[in-house]
């Protein structure tokens, strides 16, 4: 019973916070509403006994939203004062499309003949996940790792203005880096 109450409470929080993202008048509020929605979903995943994944969702998404808020304010130049923030273009199509999608998905969720549970959950879900990752799914994780590393590198390359030629000179031989402000490692 308690689980059901908690689940529905979290569901309401998750969806309302999700709606708030596109309604509120401040970028900071929008991104932290999204964070709240993620926290609620993370807790729901905890209720579904997937402890590791649930906590991970909270961890990663709060961090992401902290960064998100910085970007939003960086690009949009806002202050904490509320100001009307209408950034919609093509709401005419967006609303019916998303309502339609919701009805379709909801109908599927409610009326599809979902199979009853096959197999039983492992004793310790987290250990099972770890064994799976380090065993049969090692390849997946290997690929994920490489993708992440590639993302870091390409993200920095895309976003950065100064290249190593600016820092180390055209022949890359400069010993002391030419940065506008010195870093901490003393190069």
């Amino acid at each position, binding site marked *: 019973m308690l689980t059901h109450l908690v689940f529905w409470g979290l569901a309401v929080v998750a969806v309302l916070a999700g709606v708030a993202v596109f309604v509120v008048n401040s970028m900071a509020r929008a991104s932290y509403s999204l964070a709240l929605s993620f926290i609620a979903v993370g807790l729901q995943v905890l209720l579904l006994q997937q402890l590791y994944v649930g906590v991970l969702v909270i961890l990663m998404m709060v961090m992401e939203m902290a960064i998100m808020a910085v970007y939003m304010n*960086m690009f949009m*130049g*806002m*202050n904490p*004062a509320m100001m009307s923030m209408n950034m919609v273009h093509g709401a005419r199509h967006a609303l019916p499309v998303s309502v339609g999608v919701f009805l379709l998905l909801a109908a599927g969720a409610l009326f599809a003949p979902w199979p009853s549970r096959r197999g039983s959950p492992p004793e310790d879900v987290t250990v099972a996940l770890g064994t799976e990752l380090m065993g049969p799914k090692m390849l997946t994780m290997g690929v994920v790792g490489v993708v992440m590393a590639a993302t870091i590198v390409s993200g920095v390359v895309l976003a*950065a*203005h*100064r290249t190593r030629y600016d820092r180390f000179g055209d022949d890359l031989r400069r010993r002391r880096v030419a940065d*506008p*402000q*010195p870093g*901490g490692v*003393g190069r």
Partner: protein
Amino acid sequence: MGVSGALARLALRHAHLLVIEVPGNWLTRVAVERLAGARGWRLAVSPADADILAVCGSPGPELSLVVASLWEQLPGPRARIDVAAPELVAAALDQAEAVLRDTPRQRRDSAARDGRGPDDASDDDIALAHGSEDRDGLEMDVLHVRLGPVLPDWPAGLVLRAHLHGDLVAKAHAGVVDAGHGPAGGAHVVGGGPSGEVGPADAAELAAQRCDNAARLLALAGWRDAAQRARVVRDRLLAGERSAATTELARLRRRVRRSRLLRWSLRRVGPLPPDELARLGLAPELTGDVWDRLNGMLSRAALTVGGPAGVAVGPVGVEAGAPAGVPVGVPATPPAAVASVVSGWDLATARLIVASLDIAALGVVTDG
């Protein structure tokens, strides 16, 4: 007495003061700091943190406006004191304590302020910032922030109008508050004898001022213990305990020189080559980075207090534009130079650089 009385009594043991120094009244400010410290009071870093607003000296019209706006930002219970001279400090602090203790009076004050909107005085329309390219070539919003004239560990009277990209000072214009008025009449200036001679008492005062500036720089660098020690040396020097001060100062210098972490954090910040200094009209002993200048400041203090009495310290010669009354040996710092050396640095390093300039007095020529 009741709960509120007991609360007031406890709270008063640790009141926080926001000290505002009118240029030329540094001895009064030091006296306030010392006597407040002896009572267990602390120095506030912002108006929100303060119970007492202590104005040292008589402010000109511009500074008076600033003080009035700060007074509005004190959350309350609050007290304001105006101290004209070092010997009046103790009485003023007593008076502040009495005002803070007077709970009914504070209630009335608080009730009078309720419903008057936010405590922040400014209520002009909040405009969206305009953008310009930052040092990485990314278009960023520009924020116009006025640094000073009241900030913790900030040279008295200096105002920097900074254009900020995030926390990066893109460029700045410097000025001195109440520039037209010059040092207020009767204000004390270090070594201000008409003869231009530096007597032993003046030498101690000069050294004390170097220690005060070093304490500010150390505090900004986040090293509380060392900053506290530098203040102790300053107070000893001003009290005339010369030998004790000399030993303490030597110990402080050793400690600072040996701190690798401090050296690592201040090295290569704000380097100023000699030709640049000459161009900006700054004293040649400021050559090097912030770390060099910190050590220079402390050794000048040691030299002044340790050297034979009457020795002239530092370069003799008054800079052009210095107000009359600035003594030999302490060149006035042109505000434009301050604005020029902080451009291109982030706020934290800019603050360190300003503190490292060992400012004794500011020239009155502004660059608008």
